[in-house]
């Protein structure tokens, strides 16, 4: 892998895919971003990001769950791969270590 680091939106989306479990598809992620992270991101932008993440090998997808309100079209459901989980872990570790180095008083 050439680039192992994660962008901020990428990280958020990875986390949301984990929290959304079975229901992690484009529109749902976009909605969750609005509700939980208070960020307005268009579906197109979400699709762009997940495509990129998939290319990087952090997530994989399966097709399923066609509903009537989607005009009978299937959803692309995402799950994290092992390297996706690893990269999230790593990103958290970096932040935790950094936070640990800051004395409590320094941040208010």
């Amino acid at each position, binding site marked *: 892998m050439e680039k192992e680091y994660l962008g901020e939106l990428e990280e958020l989306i990875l986390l949301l895919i984990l929290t959304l479990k079975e229901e992690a598809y484009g529109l749902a992620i976009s909605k969750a971003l609005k509700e939980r992270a208070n960020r307005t991101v*268009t579906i*197109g*932008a979400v699709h762009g990001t997940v495509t*990129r993440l998939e290319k990087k090998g952090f997530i994989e997808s399966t097709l399923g769950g066609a509903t009537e309100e*989607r*005009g009978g*079209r299937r959803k692309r459901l995402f799950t994290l791969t092992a390297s996706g989980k690893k990269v999230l872990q790593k990103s958290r570790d970096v932040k935790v270590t950094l936070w640990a180095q800051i004395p409590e008083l320094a941040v208010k």
Partner: protein
Amino acid sequence: MNHSKQTPSRLAEAILSWFCKGNLLEEILGDLQEYQKDLVDKPSWKRPILYWFNVFQFLRPSLAKQLSGTKKLNNYGMLKIYFKSSSRNFFKHRLISSMSLLSLVFGALCFHLVYVWINNEDEMDRFHKNVDAIHMSQAKFNPQSDFEPLSLQMFFGMDFTQFTHIRSALMIHTYYQGQIELITENRDFNGKGCVVDSTFFEFFDFKLNNGETKNLLTNPSNIILSHEYAEKVFGDTNPIGRTVQIRCDQTGTYQVAGVLEKIPSNSSISFDFLIPRHSRNFWAKIPQEFILVDSSFDPIDFNNQIAEMGRANSRHKESILSSIPFTSLYLEHPFDLSLFEKQGDSSSISTMKFIAVVILLITLLCFTGLQITLHLSSTRKMGVKRVIGATKWNLFVEVMVSRLHYLLISTVMAYLLFSWIFPWYTSIMEIQIDRNYMMDLKSILIVITSVTGISAIFIVAQLFKVEVKEALTNKLIFLQVPKIQRLLTTIQYSVTIVLIVGTVVVFSQFNFMINKDTGLDHERIISVDFLDMENRDDSEEEVQNQQKNFQYLVNQMMQNPDIVDVSQGELPISSIASPASWKRMGSDSEYTSQNHMTVDTRYDDILGIELIQGRFFSDSLDRSRQNKVVINEAAYKYWEFSDLKDAKLANTHWGGEEDPWRVIGVVKDYHYEHLSNEIKPLILLFLQDNEEGFLVKAQPGKVMKSVSFLEQLYKEVNPKGIFEYDLLEDKVEAQYTKEKRVGKVYLAFTVVALLLSSIGLFTFAFHETKRRTKEIGIRKINGAGVYQIFSMLSFSFLKSIIIAFVVACPVSWYFMNKWLENFAYRADIGWWLFVLTGLISVLVAMIAISWQTLDVARKNPVESLRYE
């Protein structure tokens, strides 16, 4: 719930199906439809906005369909690869690539700057439909004098209707700035006005802002303004129908009947307003006369026919009438007419053409040299490609694609740079050129295409010649780079050196002319006309009045402490001496046309003219209109006088041989015509004339004070007139403004040429040193020092410059000698000039190469030996 709102937009789906990857399409469309359902909470006006915003957000590169063909090896896919590889190549060889780009951009830019100018000159007056059918009348009163632009109808009573080939005639009186005023709402405006016949628009196709020019000048109370002038006078308000007053030697009230479009920059004629000529019976300015002819008009035949027609009038027994094509007036400008704002100069057009060609040549050489270097450094890559299975044709396309890359980038850059530099350029050159955006783009594109195209030919030739085996071994790089590059660099430098020598010669010539002694004490001389109103009548009363005024003026001026001296005489340098037929008495020589000027007794004091022999006119010994003359040295030599005892001259007009003129003195030569002219024989006559202009010499530092004093005095004598004055210093200064301007342009282009050549040399050095890195490492190990290596390398580059210098010197010497023959007084082309040029080019070359050579020479040999 409104169901119709919920059906997904067909258009949106069509766009997305066209754009997005097939395997993603299903979920995208699904998500979108679901999203649309969610939108029902939003206000209805917001729904389509949000929906379409989301649709467009899908149009991003990562979701786009792969261009079909990448998977298969079809031409389109290859083309993409070529583009990729050519841009990679660009960044890999950043230095050479950006230098090539730079040379291309600068070359095209400079070429186009010159071209724009030349084009404007070539297109001069071409926008008049009938321009080739317009001729101007000219005449001379005796065979010795020069032609003057006189109206044949007015002076010789010519009737043009008797000639079937002449369709119409036009007279124009031109009042320039300061001679005419336009008054509206109590505000005075200066301007250049032309008083024209109603046929004006048959001759010249100036367009009206709106409406037809036809019949506009037939109404005697109409006036037509130019676009700029209308803006200046009336601002944003509509000028049509407004009344204005005109004041010159006539006064009148006119109504604005039309506003012309902006006068194009390729019009040699310019004016601020047009007045119908028949609105008054008399206009004091001498008019020019034009005739419009039909296609079967033969100018030679016509000139022969009319030549002696003026002799019917007993006053003009020797007169010769003629006509001259309007188109020749711009370049040859035989007359100094205020109607024409601009004058062309055929010699600077040809010089500029030469510069354009040189710049183009250098650009071509530089770019080709750089590209060959670049190409040779990738011969191995080409070889590998051939082994894998690329045909020569494939490689050819690859070269072409990389050319296309350069072409696009440099065209855009050159065009933007041109747009940025253009206003500055025109103000330096003091020219007016209207921009033509399409033409600019086209011409820049053509230049760049041809340069890249020609350079591609070399590379393609190389491509087809080279065998795979050769390409794969390094043999080629080592053998061919220096040879070709050395040759190109040498040619480039020879051309550049020719240009440098040219510029230095041009500059030293201009400098020589500017600093040349006029032979006059020209400081603080004010020239002013008091009594020169042309429409004064000759009545007894008027003459007496003038005499009184004249005495009053002289007294007033002499009493002013700021004024040193006053003389009546013609202002040298700017006014043109009048020719007449003179001959030496007592010799067999024929009458020849020689110049004379009228002076008074103080003329020599005021201008600091030195006397060599005899005496100047003096108040005690001479009176006006006696047959005595003072001549200059040139005249003394011309007529081979040995002393002044019996020196006499005869004039055909004034008395002939029965009543000769005695030469009483000889003055040292001084410039009385344009400074570039050789000083010709001159005869000074003492003719006092009240109407003659005054020359006033002011005290040091009191010039402007004296001018305002003279203005007051002028207002006293001519309450209605407009005060004008000239300073001799300005006139001397103005003699060479054009030369100075042209010099600046030459200098700029020479610097560009030198820069381009340096770029070529720099890259040559870059590659050569790279190629020899190993060799230098070995030399250093064997004991060579930094200095030895540096001088060895430098000399190998300087060799081509020395060769170029040797080739260029005689060539430039020949050309510049030819050029200098245009001048009566020439600066020498001294040896120092070539030394200077040599030094400049070597210095610039050293700067260009020492960056590389010093770097290599100081390298640790361990590094250079490891280098591969």
